[in-house]
């Protein structure tokens, strides 16, 4: 612009007189669900290692419901429920979840499939299973079932 010509480079010594305007288009990097590459010592699971454009190619979905099909309703409610369920399970099984939950909705039931580490003795797992199933069933007014699969440690796919 015109006034930009008036700004002389050596006037930078004057405090507060220099202004610049970034005039090119913005192109931010995609950061969604991606683990940034490190030095080669960061273990990642299969789920974390694949960015979201691999869904339906190398990955499946973490939440399965029919709300997003044509003519179906309440997709937003399903998403909010998913958020709540994930936060709830993260808090109820502290430090035990080895991977993201898989939520399946079948008829009026919700099935939570969790991969857990063997941090707690088995009877404590059963206590938490009974507790979460009952609490979530009463909260959502539908049968909620929990399916656990235990692994000794997080299943590493590669080291980034």
């Amino acid at each position: 612009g015109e006034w930009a010509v008036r700004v002389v480079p050596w006037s930078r010594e004057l405090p507060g007189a220099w202004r610049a305007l970034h005039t090119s288009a913005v192109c931010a990097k995609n950061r969604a669900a991606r683990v940034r590459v490190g030095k080669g010592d960061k273990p990642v699971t299969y789920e974390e290692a694949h960015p979201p454009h691999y869904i339906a190619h190398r990955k499946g979905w973490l939440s399965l419901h029919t709300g997003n099909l044509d003519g179906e309703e309440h997709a937003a409610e399903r998403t909010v429920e998913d958020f709540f369920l994930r936060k709830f399970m993260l808090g109820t099984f502290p430090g035990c979840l080895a991977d993201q939950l898989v939520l399946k909705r079948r008829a009026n039931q919700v099935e939570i499939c969790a991969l857990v580490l063997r941090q707690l003795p088995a009877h404590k797992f059963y206590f938490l299973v009974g507790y979460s199933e009952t609490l979530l069933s009463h909260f959502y007014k539908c049968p909620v079932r929990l399916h656990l699969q235990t692994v000794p440690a997080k299943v590493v796919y590669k080291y980034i």
Partner: protein
Amino acid sequence: MAAGASARCLSVRGALRLPLRCRWAGVCEPERGCRFYSKSAALPKDEGTDVTGIEQVVIPKKKTWDKVAVLQALASTVNRDPTAVPYTFQDDPYLIPTSSVESRSFLLAKKSGENAAKFIINSHPKYFQKDIAEPHIPCLMPEYFEPQIEDVSEAALKERIKLKKVKAAVDMFDQLLQAGTAVSLETTNSLLDLLCYYGDQEPPADFYFQQTEKSEELEQTTEENNKRASVKAAHQAGVTWKARNNAERIFALMPEKTARSYCTMIRGMVKHRAYAQALDLYTELLNSRLRADVHTFNALIEARALMANEKFEEKWNGMLELLKHMSVQKVKPNLQTFNTLLKCLRRFHAFGRMPALQTLREMKAIGIEPSLATYHHIIQVFYQPGSSAKAPSLIIYDIVNELAGKAFSPKDLDDDMFFQSAMSVCSSLRDLELAYEVHGLLNTGDNRKFIGPDLRRNFYYSKFFGLLCLMEHIDVTLKWYKDLIPSVFFPHSQVLIGLLQALDVANRLEVIPQIWKDSKEYGHTYRSNLREEILMLMARDKHPAELQAAFADCAADIRSTYESQEARQTAPDWPATPLNCVAILLLRAGRTQEAWLVVAPTRDRAI
């Protein structure tokens, strides 16, 4: 061209797999084109024109199916999976129980988790009010346990009765009387119901957890102890009817007493073991010219039988008199009447046999269908545990013949004790055919649910499997072993020792290493009698080379369990016999170095 068209028709129809007749029909009449018609639609037309004098077509009545009929039909095609655990457990090797103690503790943990969740839901009901279920599901809403109405009124009393708050209800009743308001007869009767049901105590908060822990040692005691222990555990321990308690006080305060009030009081007294008072109250009822109902008569029969200091004949005559009163007052007996009679006859030992048969005949004459509990009581009357050594009665055969092929529905609280007593009789009679018939009855229809809780199921299958080991051919026994263990019950060491002895008799000792491996999974790693039995059987004779090698591996494994057991506990003695057996087995397989290690450390100990 016709052939070409028909060939195309043929290929299309061939793809659809129509019956041959239609295909040939198509070829014979190509001008009809590719018309599809089913075989059955073609038939009646031909028949109607050709055959004269056909019968009337009877259109059957429209069947109404249950909502879950399709699911039930599908379920009937699927058998039990002998490799899976019951569905209440999570299907994961870390979370599958390996012994009956573990399975009980997991189920209790799950239940206590549910109770914890219910506690939180009921303490914060405002977060669980949003009702998105269509139709409404009442069991998923929070419950209110605290009475809401605070003022002194009859509605408040009714609410406290509904919430089963015994003390609060009695206090409210007293306050109402002091304030001078009359309480209606209906409410007083329901207050009496509450008091008599709970015996003037608060309802127990954790009834489910009151049953005592049954460890394996207890299971291994004799049958008698088992039955006695379970009877004691089932009895409401310690709640006896105190004289002049709230129920009696309120009963005395009532201006008019209906038959219902008397009946409730009598039933409450009998439940809490105040038999003489119950019978006295009954005479008072008769003096007031009121009629008792059938449940009260059942309670009175029980009271008559349990009164102390009377001989059997007098008690039986008393019970017969009560039955006569029943017919005079025109009260029809029900299934519970006869079951109570039979249950009380159990205590009369040998005297009870004739009356029991008479009762059964009377039942059939009136037309009441006996339930499994009836047959259980009859078995108990005829096969007293620890009775004399006379020839045992053969009534069990009649019973099983009568019950063959019948599917039962639950009608009495004691229905689930039938299979346990039947199988124990089969086991004492050593009759395998009868045991198979009883097991067949268990698998008819839905009778599986009458097997009862864990302890009874274990008892039943232990007896069944023990009988199989004794009497059946070894291949069949091993098949049952794979089928039943561990998916149906966890065997205790006596059962496994029985199996080992059966293997010994049938000369199939090569299965022993497999049995040892399985026993470790069921929690018997440190069970001394089992280990000694295994070692003795293996070490007794010499065997061909590879079998000897397998035995030596097994022996080394058992030795390592002895060592690890020692490391955990402080210095128990190594018994001599297993040591000898281990050493012999290792030597026979040529592992002299290890055998030396077995013998050498014990040089310091006194053998």
